[in-house]
């Protein structure tokens, strides 16, 4: 059994164990859940240590027949890109558990259900990044929506039911388009001798241009909804507004990365020609996302919607980096995914604590938190600085790489993207000024600062943002070989400077 399978099984078995704990002892349920998720973190770090970044291709592979009639296998394996995303997942889950200690209390259902759903979700998030069989990927990609649906609808706030169904319908619609494309590529592989769902096998098919374009679109739209890219983004703000801070963290921090990850793993690898055809359109959409998300973020009154819109902007950067199709762009985009995961986590969790204390998510209700709750305010401030990619924090490295990587091929897009940074400074600083600075507004005087549990939860996130900002090399080294493989599959290479320049 591969360590990846173990990694998927531990939270799943954990969910079973938690399921049999008595409903009344919610403290025990939480402790057991955290213990399980920490075990997963430990195993995943062990895996990362054993990962050999010099070897190209997938590692820790395992393949078992699942549905032989269609040659569907339970096939898993990771390259550098998948590995860092799995690490992101396994590190964020215990943090979310710890940070959202009380999130499960106000839900429609029991505390137990909340943790069972989250553990099942963790197992699926690991599985979706580990899958090297397109069918397996698709199944997890879709099935993953169900726990999130219940997490938003069952434990969220406000218009949670509507937000949950909006999220689910958008995603399932995208998923169905992808299903048609999955079937299409399977039939093509059948016609070219032996149907397969293996991603490496599929990347060797010869597919004519029109078909490739259609199949590409099937995959891409599903991923663009997931990511979300403008104009497929409309489900995100309502979901982020209604979900609990923890769910939002996992939703935007990890789940949405499946979209951008899928663009690299499937769109680029399986349909290189179509990727080239659609690149100008996608780059345009990415730039629109960057600017649109940033502009709308400036105008938001609700702190969670603000974070959601900043994410739309950031996903624009990630997509720009991916489709620039240079090694810097692609590496930067992958690194961006990790950084965005952590910095969004920091934002959502600190904002969640603010909302929990103030009982309001409206930005103008806050004010002067710096005086009342200094540690909370500083944490939020650092998270905000990470969102605007302040040099010294890890997001700066990735944003810089993305812009450099895309400038060599698409200078205009890169320049427009740079405006996104300016706008980012604006939307972050405005909220920092309103919420943290000045005199404490009425209703804010008696707010309590972070307790020990919350400090422990936020500390590792900030630590990672800072350490990876000054010392990004280990992560970049993990990603680089995988990026090179993807680029060679897609048949692109970095542009070289013309003579005399």
């Amino acid at each position, binding site marked *: 059994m591969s360590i990846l399978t173990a990694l998927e099984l531990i939270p799943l078995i954990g969910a079973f164990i938690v399921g049999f704990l008595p409903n009344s002892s919610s403290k025990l349920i939480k402790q057991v859940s955290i213990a399980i998720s920490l075990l997963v973190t430990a195993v995943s770090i062990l895996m990362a240590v054993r990962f050999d970044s010099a070897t190209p291709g997938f590692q820790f592979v395992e393949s078992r027949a699942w549905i032989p009639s269609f040659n569907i296998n339970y096939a898993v394996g990771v390259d550098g890109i998948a590995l860092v995303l799995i690490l992101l997942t396994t590190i964020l889950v215990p943090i979310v558990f710890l940070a959202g200690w009380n999130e499960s209390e106000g839900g429609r259902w029991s505390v137990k259900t909340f943790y069972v759903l989250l553990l099942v979700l963790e197992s699926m998030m690991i599985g979706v990044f580990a899958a090297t069989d397109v069918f397996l990927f698709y199944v997890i990609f879709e099935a993953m929506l169900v726990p999130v649906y219940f997490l938003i609808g069952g434990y969220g706030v406000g218009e949670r039911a509507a937000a949950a169904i909006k999220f689910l319908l958008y995603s399932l619609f995208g998923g169905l388009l992808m*299903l048609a494309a999955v079937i299409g590529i*399977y039939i093509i592989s059948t016609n070219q001798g032996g149907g397969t769902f293996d991603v490496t096998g599929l990347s060797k098919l010869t597919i004519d241009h029109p078909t490739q374009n259609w199949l590409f679109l099937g995959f891409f739209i599903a991923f663009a909804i997931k990511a979300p890219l403008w104009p497929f983004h409309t489900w995100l703000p309502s979901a982020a507004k209604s979900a609990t801070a923890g769910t939002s963290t996992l939703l935007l921090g990890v789940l949405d990365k499946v979209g951008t990850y899928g663009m690299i793993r499937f769109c680029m690898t399986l349909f290189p020609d179509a990727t080239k055809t659609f690149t100008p359109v996608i780059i345009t959409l990415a730039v629109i996302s960057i600017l649109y998300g940033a502009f709308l973020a400036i105008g938001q009154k609700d702190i969670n919607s603000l974070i959601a819109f900043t994410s739309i902007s950031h996903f624009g950067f990630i997509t720009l980096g991916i489709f620039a199709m240079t090694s810097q762009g692609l590496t930067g985009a992958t690194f961006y995914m990790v950084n965005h995961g952590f910095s969004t986590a920091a934002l959502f969790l600190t904002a969640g604590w603010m909302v929990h204390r103030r009982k309001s998510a409206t930005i103008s209700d806050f004010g002067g938190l710096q005086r009342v709750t200094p540690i909370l305010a500083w944490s939020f401030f650092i998270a905000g600085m990470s969102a605007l990619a302040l040099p010294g924090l890890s997001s700066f490295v990735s944003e810089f790489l993305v812009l450099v990587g895309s400038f060599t091929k698409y200078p205009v897009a890169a320049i427009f993207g740079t405006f996104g940074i300016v706008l980012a400074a604006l939307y972050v600083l405005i909220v920092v000024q309103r919420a943290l600075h000045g005199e404490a507004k009425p209703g804010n005087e008696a707010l309590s600062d972070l307790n020990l549990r919350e400090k422990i939860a936020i500390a590792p996130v900030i630590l990672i943002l800072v350490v990876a900002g000054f010392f990004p090399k280990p992560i970049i080294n993990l990603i680089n070989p995988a990026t090179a493989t993807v680029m060679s599959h897609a048949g692109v290479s970095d542009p070289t400077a013309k003579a005399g320049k």
Partner: protein
Amino acid sequence: MLTAPHLNYALLAPILIVLGGALVGVLAEAFLSKALRAKAQLPIALITLAAAFVQLIRIRNERSIIAAVTSVSIDGAGIFLQGTVLVLAFIGILLIADTDNFTAQASAIPGSTEENLSIQAGKQQSEVFPLTLFAISGMMLFPIATDLITLFVALEVLSLPLYLLAGLSRRRRLLSQEAALKYFLLGAYSSAFFLFGAAFLYGFSGSLSLYGIADAIHGSGGNDLFLLIGLLFLSVGLLFKVGAVPFHSWTPDVYQGAPTPITGFMAACTKVAAFGATLRIFYVAFYAAQWSWKPIIATIAVLTMAFGAIAALAQRDVKRTLAYSSITHAGFLLLGVMALSKSGLSASLFYLVAYGFATLGAFGIVTLVRDSAGEVTDINRWVGLGKKSPLVASAFALFLLSFGGVPLTSGFIGKFSIFSAAYESGNIYLVVVGVLSSAIALFFYLRIVLMMFFAEPTSDTVSVIIPSALTRIAITICAAMTLLLGVFPSFLLDITKTFAGFLS
């Protein structure tokens, strides 16, 4: 002098056992005392079905087209379909066993003194079981019949008891009788169409046998007016039975009016039988004429998929919603007919099993949600069911997700295989329409899930009754199969692959 035809009784035994069991049931009805009768009918029905299934297993590797002269064909697909009918009917009987759903005396006029008297006397009709067995025998004959007369007889044998059964509801009897009458009248029309088509096909080919028709098409090139008329009318008869648009209009009314266990039985088993026969007729007899009928069936498939999904959006009644959903599924199954390939047949067989289990389970749950006046089928009153009885609501959600084709449920694998087969046969546009209809259909499935789980229960007096042991077993089996076929579908996919073949 007329010689008696040679019959291979061993191969026909499954049907004969069911018919025999039905006759024993009728005799029991006539000669046993009232108390004994109620106890005896259920075991008779279940043992009959089990015995027929055992015999079917014993002959599973036999292949013959002369088992009854040339009227039936014992082949892989035929045996698989018969087995499917038996298994689903067995579960259906478990639901029907809850006789509380059936009227005390069917012949009494609704609301009359006579009816009240019979209720007070504690009368309970138990003819339900023999009638169901008769219908099952017809359902088993229909997919293996290979000549038009046998097909017609089987069609009538399966339909007539169903017309009666549809009218037996204990509550809302007028609605039930209306449903029965509608079903009967429209069914009679469709039978007439079927016969009319059969007559033209005989005129065209000079043969009643599907093989004879196939040969005649080969000889003529398949562009004969008689053939086209015959094909068209025969198809109308079949499409009526499977509930395809535009011959679907009876479905919602009948599904709503019939006693819910009967609706479940009918929805699952009739679909298996009717699609079995449709597949055989199109794969065996009309294969060579595919250029004539494919555009028509394709149009009907598109209409059926899209209409079922769109019309379901406007429904406020659970049973009607499920009826429209069954129409959509009929559309998906037509993709299997269109594929005209081994993988298309195998996918259809899998789909029928998956759909059958989910349907029986879903209707089984509808029988449980009640208020003082009987079943509550108004969706708005199902609000908050997830809080009141999480288990029942979760099971219903599982069946709905399976209908919607969400991964890890049987419906997804079914959809995947049938879409694959359609794609493989080059009907890519049908796959696209199918995918879009699925998306629309998902909306109303999810709306029900949403209402059950994400809304607070109103003060309304809806409650979930404690299911009888048999109902509980039936629903559990359905839920387990829905999950099992979604996560580990290989065993059934292997079986359908082995059995997917018509003798021709």
